[in-house]
Structure formats: structure tokens, C-alpha cells
């Protein structure tokens, strides 16, 4: 269906896609300020969705060995080591009852500790309101679910790869291996655990997250919680805290999966101001139409010249 804002602007995606009385839009709020980099989300995702091995190599980039979001990596934990400038909230850490490793608490004064900070963030498909991958898919393999998420139908995709180039976040990818995998050659990405959602289950990554860094729920409600969380962090003096993807007026109409970050988005490998490419599509078709008309006129003119 084509309505106002179908290509750009605030929108509830499921009704726009033609669903009558769909359930509330579902999404993730990933609060990176409480991410401990345990990668439970990566593992849970792989197990539940039967995502095969990724390129496994030591990259020499902190603790990141899962590389990037790609066809075989639907959750990706980024690790950034940087000079520690943000003040630490001055209250005791919440005891999660996790087993501890390393040295016992020391009486080294704060100023003598290394001036150093880790940022960790579990990245995932953004399930954009205006999803470029879905817009450009020529087979209809990518579709909008009743939950407002974006899902690939494995048995329809013919592996044209257009979605790969269209995604402004570099999420979706064509599976290249391992050899023999039935989904080699077709586009793959996070489905927001579509199968679990239809059974009233939380997506596997959110279920596995031990610190509730990954929150799952109705997007409207998550946006409110995110606003409260960022306000609370600002109150505690963590002025670097900011939300990413929560604005329905932004270049992709807001994302279904959005984030609380502690630095600029590009530090995490996220684009600072992503825009859905199809926003400019009417203009592109106009320009192409003009060029095509010129070409037809040019051909006609070539024959209308006198002699040879």
C-alpha cells in the first residue's frame, strides 16, 4: 500500500504494509551502559536460529572475534577500548550473582587506576520503519511481519544481493558458507525471532541477556523506558549517554531496535545519520525518465539530419 510517509517520515509499519489490527510493534532497546560483553546474546541467537559458523579469526581488535553483523552473525558484540573520560556513577554496582574472576577488591585509590574505559554494545538488525532492504527486494522475499519487523523468506530469496547494498547499517548479507548449508547464496539477517514472537516468547538474545542490556517489548513502551533511562544516566553525571534510532522523524523513520550509546555512533560502527535510500527514489526515477527521454530524442535527431 502506498500512503503518505510510505517512503519517509513517521509511520506505524505493520498497518502501512496492509495488516488489519496488527499486534503492537515489537522491538529491542539495547542499553549498552549495562552490557558486560558476555556474548550470551550471540550464542543464544546462533543456537536458536541455527546460524552456522562465522568467519572465526583473531582480529587483534580487543575482544571482538565475531567481526561484524553478517549473514552468519545476527547479534554482534562490539568492544571498544578508549581513554576513560566518563565519570563512573557513584553508587555500588548491582550484584548479579555472577561468578567472579580476577583480583579481589583492592584498596588502590581511584586516581591511581588506569584511565581507561571499555565500551561494549550488542548490535543487531534495526528493523527500520522504512527498511531499505525490504523496499528494494525484487522478489518479495523480504516482508514486513505483523509485529512491524522485517523478515527474509528463505524459500523465495533468489540471492540477487540488492538488499545487501541497500541497508544503511550494513546488516543484511548474502550467506557465502559453510558449503552445503541450505541457505548459502541467499540473504540472511535477524528475524527478531519471528517464530518465537508468534508463540509469545521473547527473542532468544533478550531471553539470554544476563544484565537486561537487551530489552524486548512494544516499541512505544521501550521508547519511554529509554527516555527514562537516559534521563537517569544524565542525572548521575553520565553526560555521554544518548539514544540512537529512537526518533520517528529520523532518516529511517526510527528503528524497531534502538540503542543507548555512551559515545558517538560511528565509534560503535554505526552510521551517525543513516537515511533510507528510497527516500530519494521518486527523484531518481524522475531523473532517469528525463535521461531516457533525451536518449529517445537524441536517436530521432540522429536520423533526421540531412544526408548520411
Amino acid at each position: 500500500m502506498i500512503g503518505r510517509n510510505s517512503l519517509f517520515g513517521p509511520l506505524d509499519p505493520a498497518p502501512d504494509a496492509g495488516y488489519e489490527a496488527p499486534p503492537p510493534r515489537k522491538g529491542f532497546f539495547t542499553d549498552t551502559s549495562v552490557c558486560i560483553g558476555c556474548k550470551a546474546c550471540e550464542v543464544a541467537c546462533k543456537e536458536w536460529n541455527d546460524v552456522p559458523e562465522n568467519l572465526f579469526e583473531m582480529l587483534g581488535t580487543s575482544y571482538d572475534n565475531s567481526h561484524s553483523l553478517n549473514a552468519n552473525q545476527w547479534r554482534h558484540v562490539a568492544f571498544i577500548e578508549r581513554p576513560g573520560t566518563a565519570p563512573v556513577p557513584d553508587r555500588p554496582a548491582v550484584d548479579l550473582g555472577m561468578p567472579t574472576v580476577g583480583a579481589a577488591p583492592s584498596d588502590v585509590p581511584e586516581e591511581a587506576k588506569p584511565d581507561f574505559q571499555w565500551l561494549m554494545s550488542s548490535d543487531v538488525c534495526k528493523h527500520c520503519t522504512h527498511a531499505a532492504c525490504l523496499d528494494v527486494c525484487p522478489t518479495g522475499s523480504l516482508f514486513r511481519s505483523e509485529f512491524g519487523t522485517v523478515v527474509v523468506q528463505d524459500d523465495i530469496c533468489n540471492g540477487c544481493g540488492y538488499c545487501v547494498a541497500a541497508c544503511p547499517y550494513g546488516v543484511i548479507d548474502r550467506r557465502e558458507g559453510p558449503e552445503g548449508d541450505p541457505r548459502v547464496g541467499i540473504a540472511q539477517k535477524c528475524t527478531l525471532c519471528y517464530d518465537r514472537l508468534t508463540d509469545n516468547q521473547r527473542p532468544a538474545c533478550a531471553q539470554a541477556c544476563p544484565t537486561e542490556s537487551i530489552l524486548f517489548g512494544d516499541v512505544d513502551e521501550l521508547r519511554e523506558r529509554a527516555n527514562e533511562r537516559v534521563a537517569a544516566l544524565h542525572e548521575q553525571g553520565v553526560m555521554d549517554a544518548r539514544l540512537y534510532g529512537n526518533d520517528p522523524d529520523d532518516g529511517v523513520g526510527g528503528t524497531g531496535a534502538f540503542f543507548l550509546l555512551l559515545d558517538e555512533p560511528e565509534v560503535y560502527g554505526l552510521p551517525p545519520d543513516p537515511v533510507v535510500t528510497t527516500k530519494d527514489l521518486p527523484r531518481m526515477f524522475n531523473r532517469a525518465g528525463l535521461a531516457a527521454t533525451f536518449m529517445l530524442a537524441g536517436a530521432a535527431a540522429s536520423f533526421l539530419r540531412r544526408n548520411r
Partner: protein
Amino acid sequence: MTQVHGGSPSRQRGSRRGGDRIMVPEADFSSYYGRPIVKPAPWENDIAYYLFTGGVAAGSALLAAGADLTGRPGLRRVARFGSLGGLGLSIGFLVHDLGKPSRFLNMLRVAKLTSPMSVGTWILSLHGPFAALASGSEIVAMLPAHWQRGPLGLVVTLGRPAGLVGAVTAPPVAAYTAVLLADTATPAWHSAHEELPFVFCGSAAAASGGLGLLGAPVAEAGPARAFAVGGALVELAAEQRMEASMGLSAETLHQGVAGRWMRASKALTVAGAVGALAGRRSRLLSMASGAALMAGSLCTRMGVFEAGLASARDPKYTVVPQRERVDQGVPVRHQE
């Protein structure tokens, strides 16, 4: 290691060969260990070849119809063969580049205006049969006269009307491929969306006109010459304008593999156009010019294709323009 990682994976410093060095200070920006943000299209060179053969097919369909109407059988023949050959190769390249070639027909299960690939598939599906029928009539007409009865005779009769429909539907075949590339998050392709259709249509005219010069007798090649030279001029001018409007990612057209293709393209296109103008009476010079124009068109397609891939591999072209918008307080936001 307590540094925020910045910069591109392979920043080139110092001087480069050639005269197209752009004097822009190296942009400073943050990234995640220099890794790409957007993904390059997972396409082989097949797609660049397709851009070329599709252009040849489209321009040739136009020339074939014109030659048919104005009584130039020599030009008509080479143009119709160019149209058929270009179409056949195009479809071959397109299918070969799919991850699941056996599912090629899935393209036809929907018609989606938001997908330039879907629109293009339908444009090709409309243009292809008519252009092929016109080309088929050329082949049938070459058969012995007593074979040209019955259904085959019908093909000959339908040659002209089919060729006219093929001609009217040809320009979209040449133009849509520009939208196909531009409607992506690939910085050098998307930022070129204003002028790329003109570059590609010009390039298609130059290549198909070049084919006409290559194959048609000098006495009939006039329109092909005009079409080729006009196309070359449009291509060169539009390419200049395009670079001016692309912003930062324009530099990918000057660097590395893409830069070599683009320099070759310019040299061949200029030489081909000059040669075509000078060689009005010389079959040999016309043929050489036609070949140069075709090669120039192929180089343009390769150059634009490679520049896009390079702009996706380096996070600079994604981050820097977006960061500038944010820092200047003008991020892309929906306004009522």
C-alpha cells in the same frame, strides 16, 4: 592500547600518480577499528558487464528502428544483431550473478515500484520479446526465400512494428540501471543519483553508435556516428557534473582500480568521438573509433561499479558526510 580507533583501513597518504589529485585535506573521523559500515554489493564484475551490454542492447534497438524506417539495411542489420546479442548477454550476466540462479523467475512473482531491480526486470521483460522479434526477422530475412513462408514469414512481416515497440521501450532499459545503482546505501552510487542516468544513457548511445560504426558501411553509418558522438559528449559532460555533486565520494572515481578505469574511459571516449568525426569517409577510421567508443563505455561502467564498491569498503565515505550533517545541526529529519 587505549586509543579510539579512527581512520580508514588503507588511507593513502603522499602523492599519487597522475594529474587528478584532489587537494582535500584527509578527513578525520572515528570508526570501529576502521571497519566498513555499509556492505559493498556482493556482485561480481558480471553486473558491470551487464550495465554495458544492456546499454548496447538499448541503443542498438533505437538505431535498428531508425535504420529500418530510413532505409539503411546495413546499419539495421548490425544494430539488430547488437540488440539481440546485448540482450542475450545481459540476461546471462544477470542470472549468473544471483546467489540462487535457479530462482531467477522469482523476480516475476511481484511488481514493486520501490525496487528498481523489479522495475528493471519488468522493463526488460517488456522490451526483450519485441527487440528479439525484430532481430529474429533480420535472421529470417537472411534465409533462403522458400523458407520464409508460414510462421517464419510472419516474423519478417512483424519485424518493423516489433522493432518500433522495441525502440520506444529501449531508453528505459539504458536509464534504469543508473537508478539500480543509485538506490543503495553505497556512497559513491547514491550520491551520484542526479547525473548517473545521463552518464549511463550517454554511455549507451556512445557504445551502440560505436557498434554501428564498427559494422555498418560508411554510406549508412551517419546516424550511428551522430548518435555515438552525441552520446559521448553527454557522457563526458554529465560525468563532470556528477563529480561536482557527489561530494567526498567523488574521489573514489580517481583512486585505485576505479580511477584507472575512469581515466581509460575518458581517453577512449574522447579519442573515439574525435576519430568518429574525422573518419566520415574512412571505413577503417570509423571502425577504430567505434571500437574505442565501445571500449570507453565499458570502462565507464567498470569505473562507476568499482568506485561504488571502494566507497562502501571505506567507512570514511559513510561517516564523514553524515557526521558533517549532524555537526552542522542539519541531520536528515522529517518535516511536516
